[in-house]
């Protein structure tokens, strides 16, 4: 760009005037570049907006006389009408659904990833991958419907109607596991595929069976990518909302029984804001406090996952 000849205007003065190689300032170009930069910078505003708004309202919440940060983090009761604001019942419910979900999603997701990357022929892969993409693309509210109308009745008929409540964290967690399976499978599969062929060939050369190559050579080599996938899955499970809002139950409940109903952090936010929430009420402020906690948990998980990928990536030539 810098070495463009000058325009028509200087033609008459050519050759007496030396050819200017200076970059001409172009106003329109600079304007466009500025606009594009602003579009890129806009995402920073979103993050700042999230932190500022959540922080501001959460600050108002914690300044209320009936709330303090310590009780918020350690209290086992969430009952706004009697001034109890302990987030633990909501957090344990989130923990329960996430744990059940990961119990399903990790083994199945890793098995699918190993099968797709190490065993499946190209033809099988090309049919299976779209199916997994469909699973990942179905709206979560549909999964919620599935949990409530299909999985819960099955659980109730297996374990008995007195044991399993209509709304329970097990059913929500199981279905959430299926939702997260494709995520873990596809990210792990990418990691497995990135392991160079030479490692596999070397292992075969030493007489390893296919399973041994997959599990003892390729899998450890891809471990960083796989753990990143798992952490990403956990973060997704914690932030997942509609499945738990529909199937896990309404009303905070401090319990570790997966067959009992319990409200997760996300489920609580949805239920509280479902009606016409009046601004500056304690409920309004409380969803920002829970939201802030949720934001920090998922953000740190995402950052950890990115760090793992960057720091422990095995570099192959």
């Amino acid at each position, binding site marked *: *760009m810098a070495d463009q000849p000058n325009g028509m205007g200087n033609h008459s003065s050519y050759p007496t005037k030396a050819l200017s190689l200076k970059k001409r300032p172009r106003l329109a*170009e600079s304007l466009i*570049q500025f606009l*594009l930069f602003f*579009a*890129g*910078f*806009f*995402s*920073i505003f979103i*993050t700042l*907006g*999230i932190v500022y*708004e*959540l922080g501001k*309202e959460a600050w108002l919440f914690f300044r209320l006389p009936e709330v303090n940060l310590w009780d918020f983090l350690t209290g086992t009761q969430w009952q706004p009408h009697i001034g109890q604001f302990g987030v633990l019942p909501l957090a344990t419910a989130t923990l329960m659904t996430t744990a059940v979900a990961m119990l399903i999603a990790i083994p*199945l997701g890793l*098995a*699918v990833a190993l*099968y797709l990357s190490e*065993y499946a022929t190209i033809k099988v892969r090309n049919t*299976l991958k779209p*199916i*997994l993409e*469909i*699973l990942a*693309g*179905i*709206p*979560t*509210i*549909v999964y919620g*419907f*599935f949990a409530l*109308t*299909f999985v819960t009745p099955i659980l109730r008929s297996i374990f008995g109607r007195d044991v399993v409540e209509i709304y329970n964290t097990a059913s929500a967690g199981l279905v959430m596991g*299926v939702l997260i399976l494709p995520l873990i499978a596809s990210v792990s599969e990418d990691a497995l595929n990135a392991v160079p062929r030479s490692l596999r060939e070397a292992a075969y050369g030493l007489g390893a*069976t*296919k*399973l041994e190559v997959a599990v003892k050579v390729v899998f450890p080599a891809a471990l960083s990518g796989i753990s990143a996938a798992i952490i*990403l899955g956990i*973060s997704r499970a914690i*932030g*997942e*909302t*509609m499945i738990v*809002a*529909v199937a896990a139950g309404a009303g905070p409940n401090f319990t570790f029984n997966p067959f009992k109903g319990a409200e997760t952090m*996300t489920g609580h*936010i*949805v239920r509280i*804001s479902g009606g*016409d929430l009046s601004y500056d009420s304690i409920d309004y402020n409380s*969803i*920002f406090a829970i*939201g802030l906690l949720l934001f920090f948990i*998922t*953000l740190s998980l*995402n950052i950890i996952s*990115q760090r793992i990928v960057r720091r422990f990536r095995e570099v192959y030539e």
Partner: protein
Amino acid sequence: MSLEKELFKKKNGNAAPLTPEPNLPDRHRRGQVWLLIFQAATVIGIIVLTALLLNIIDSAFGYVAYESKKDPAQFIVDGVPIEEQTQEQLVALLQAQLSSGAFNKLNNEKPFEERSRAEVYALVVERILKYDVIASWSLTDSLFRRAAIDAEVQELLVEHPRLELKFVSWLTADFISRPQSSEAVTAGVRTAIFGSLLTIIITILVAFPVGVGAAIYLEEYATDNWLNRVIQTNINNLAGVPSIIYGILGLAIFVRAMEKLTSGVLIGAADPTTATGRTVLSAGLTLGLLVLPVIIINSQEAIRAVPQSLRKAGYGLGATKWQTIWSHVLPNALPGILTGTILSVSRAIGETAPLVVVGASTAISFDPTFFSRFTTLPIQIYQWTSRPQDEWRHLAAAAIIVLLVMLLSLNASAILLRNRFARKY
């Protein structure tokens, strides 16, 4: 295994094994078993997907037993049953049966002369006959437990003498074209579909230009300095923020802080006394923020895939940077950008949680505008699923089918676009 090893030692003395390891069959068997396990895991995914779809179909069709609050026989005029009466007769019937206030209200919403006969008939069904669903059955029950259903109906007939049993599809053309209603028999998803479409239009208008602009900046202009690295990292992190957080952000910023703008008061589109910020506009803007990072990342990939030689050729011909981008890079990246945008938009259409937080309403029986309260398909499904009565679950299933068909056609168009315009270098 230890037994095999001992046998092996006996045969060969203590010499090191020269033949392949003795437990080779064992290892191969283990390989076979695990292969089966891996395959089973994959099959489970397919089974769940099938179960999910079948469950929806199972709920969307089946027998329904319902009863009208008033006997249709009492409205027969000159031997003509209510189904065959003319529009004038039906309007007269409405006038006679409804309070004058209710009748005038209906007339004000839309004059009876302008309504079609079908619309008036729907009003008669909704306001006068008032069909109540007494019991409903799933498709599998309807097909395989017919005798049991008949027995149940016999029992119900004692209490509900006018009970009618009918095999219905909850998903009908009427269901799609009717507005939301408080009666299961007359409820439809028309308002929800319009709400979804309007919301998505705003989402695209906001997220597409900003997203593509940001992607161009990051791929073509940004040098490797700390600010640009922060922007890139920030976008990657935003893509992982739970959608409900965006809902809270939208509630605080669009619904509350920018209420004057989003309610339409500022441009005089709404009545300042009743308007709130819980509008289609707020919802669309919130979803716009939600899909923005995804659109940026997808567009970046598409732009990165354009070969460097094209840019060099542009520069070589004396084009400026922007001319090169506009006439060479963007046209080649466009199919990829559009595909990525369609996929992220289809994700936005299915989003429920942020819209609940932003303040979607459900009882909306009019077609929404940009500045009106809104409901969308997923919101409607959520509300119907949350109700305890069976009939609403059936409606939710029917609405899910509508939603899935909508998403499927969007995704299919994305794939077509990709295959049609994809270029290989």
